[in-house]
């Protein structure tokens, strides 16, 4: 029973991390139909910025609790700088082109950013571990968990609920849904579609950076960390259905629980478990769990 409980707790903690990492990817695809491969680099930029800003904060002897603010600030800064830079500087010239062209464009951005990270921060690892242990630990299901894991859970919940609220309850959100359904018709109706694209991409970039910034205290920040994440995030959004917020949440939960179960009960298949879920879902729902029906165009 205790083993089962810890499996669920571990699964939920991992799912919350996966959701934070994947939600920006699905948001950008949902609105702009761009599979943003640069998402991994934006995640890494968030982590590196958090390590630098957090390190600066703690290195100067400021109150340690402020380091959480530094994590959030670094994500906001990365989003505000990189989002408009990529969207206005590159992607807007490619709207209307094939999705593959846009995917390749973001892949090139990914490669450029990976090298830029090496140029700025070098190849040595960075670490900003203090926020991870700062709030202590709690005993749960017979095991010790750092409080930070539950902060990540809260960040994930706030992100998901906040996005859903904006989309469904605000005027801007409803306009965005109109853009998602038909951007041409929305433009005809007077909606400034390019502005929505800019805001969406910036928010998506910020969410990627949030994932990186809040992951940084748990890991060693190393070159190439974005590569691993883009594969995982892609698996999660494909399971849930590209562009679906609910799908990303459910995909993250499924992947998290299955991975946790495999680690606890059958560690030999851990490597394979995430992709097993993906294969099984795609066998029965080729466009993911929450894909919407599309009218066939002749």
């Amino acid at each position, binding site marked *: 029973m*205790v083993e089962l409980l810890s499996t669920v707790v571990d699964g939920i903690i991992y799912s919350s991390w996966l959701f934070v990492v994947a939600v920006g990817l699905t948001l950008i695809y949902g609105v702009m139909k761009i599979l943003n491969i640069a998402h991994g680099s934006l995640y890494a930029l968030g982590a590196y910025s958090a390590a630098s800003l957090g390190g600066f904060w703690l290195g100067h002897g400021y109150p340690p609790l402020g380091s959480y603010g530094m994590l959030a600030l670094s994500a906001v800064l990365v989003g505000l700088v990189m989002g408009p830079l990529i969207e206005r500087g590159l992607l807007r010239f490619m709207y209307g082109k094939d999705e593959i062209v846009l995917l390749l464009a973001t892949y090139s951005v990914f490669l450029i950013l990976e090298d830029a990270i090496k140029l700025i921060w070098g*190849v040595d690892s960075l*670490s900003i571990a203090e926020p991870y242990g700062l709030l202590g630990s709690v005993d749960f299901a017979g*095991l010790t968990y750092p409080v930070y894991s539950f902060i990540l859970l809260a960040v994930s919940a706030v992100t998901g609920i906040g996005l859903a609220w904006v989309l469904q309850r605000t005027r801007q959100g409803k306009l965005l849904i109109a853009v998602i359904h038909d951007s041409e018709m929305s433009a005809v109706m007077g909606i400034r579609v390019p502005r929505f694209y800019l805001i969406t991409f910036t928010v998506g970039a910020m969410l990627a950076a949030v994932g990186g910034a809040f992951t940084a205290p748990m*890991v060693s920040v190393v070159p*190439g*960390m974005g590569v691993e994440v883009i594969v995982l995030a892609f698996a999660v959004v494909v399971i849930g259905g590209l562009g679906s917020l609910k799908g990303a949440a459910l995909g993250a939960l499924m992947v998290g629980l299955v*991975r946790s179960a495999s680690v606890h009960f059958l560690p030999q298949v*851990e490597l394979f478990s995430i992709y097993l879920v993906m294969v099984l879902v795609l066998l029965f729902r080729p466009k993911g769990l929450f894909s919407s029906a599309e009218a066939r165009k002749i």
Partner: protein
Amino acid sequence: MQKRFGFGRILFVAFATVLIAVGFAISAPAVEQKPIKIGIVSFLSGPAAGPFGVPARNGAEILAEALNEGGKVPGYGTKGLGGAPIELVYLDEAGGTTKQVTEYRNLVQRQNVDLVIGYISSGDTLAIAPVAEELKKLTVFFDSGTPRIFEDASYKYVFRTGSHSTMDSVGAALYVTEMRPNIRKYAGINQNYAWGQDSWSDFEAAMKILAPKAKAVTSQMTKLMSGQFGAEISVLLSSGAEVIHSSFWGGDTESFVLQAAPRGLFKKSTVVLTCGEHIMYRLGNKIPDGTVLGGKGTVGIFAPDTELNRWFQKVYAERYYVPPTYPTYRMAQAILGVKSAYEKAMAANKGMTPTQDQVIASFEHLSFDTPSGKVEMGLGKGHQAVTGISYGTTKVVNGKLTITNIKTYPKEKVNPPEGVLSKDWIESGFKRTK
């Protein structure tokens, strides 16, 4: 009557001759020896660059410079390789085995290097070795763990100047069984590829011999560079394991320590990080007390207190502001191995430039001094090095990480004898005879 030369006149003539000779030696331009071009291959990008590739590359750089100056490296007085300057060509190991094979061919066939020193990844070494044979180019692997290179095949042109992974696992098993003679449960967390699997398999086999009553309660195999070990740490915490073996390297080791320490894993179990030495300066006092660290040999903090090691540590720290770790030491082993073999071959060739075959013949079964002590090419028909290995336990004193209870196991105790497979040697109960 024949005029006799007096002693004073003879002395005068001799003195004058010496003066003229010295004058010629000073004024005449020295005969320039053709540089020896060495390809240095290590990870310069990707996650293995920071912990391994760049420190190894830096080690090659300072040693080549010091050797080219001559008289700087204690015990190695001659310049370069037998007087010929060393010229290094650096290459990035990142990109996978297919790319590496292509790059290796480029190094040999287009850049015309005289020899290649490199390769950290076991996968890369397994792919490069047959190509080195095909191209007949002296190739020295300075790192990589797999014992399979010389246990599954025999090569003429390939050498490895660092011990293979069996030594790390057997050394770790010896250390923990001496530390906890009544151990009942142990576990493992390793990366799910050849290195992690081989390391765990050797450790488990050695534990079966050294502590037959102990049981492996779980073996966690994680995706390389996954960075998230929450569930694995839960399993290890609830497993009741007294000892946890891990051959994690680089970012995975650091992430594991950062995530496991606040959860109390290091208090509950003795965690053995067989490659932990290379992260000790990065994490410092974040590594909890009681962690067992190894460094794939007698390197770094475990290295012998010799003039050569003191010089090596000093020049490295002066240039790169951190002490050298095991990848740097392993690179030094390769370069000094090549220098020793080259100069031995040169001496046998009456001071003439030796052929590649003569260098290879000299390299086989060679024994040479390095900052990490004496290295002997004792396995794989003289192509595979054997060394001893050290392990120690961490203790933070006045905020600084120190290593206590250091134990060094001699090479015979942690390496199989010539002609015996590592697996068979461990299962035989570490017998020294066939």
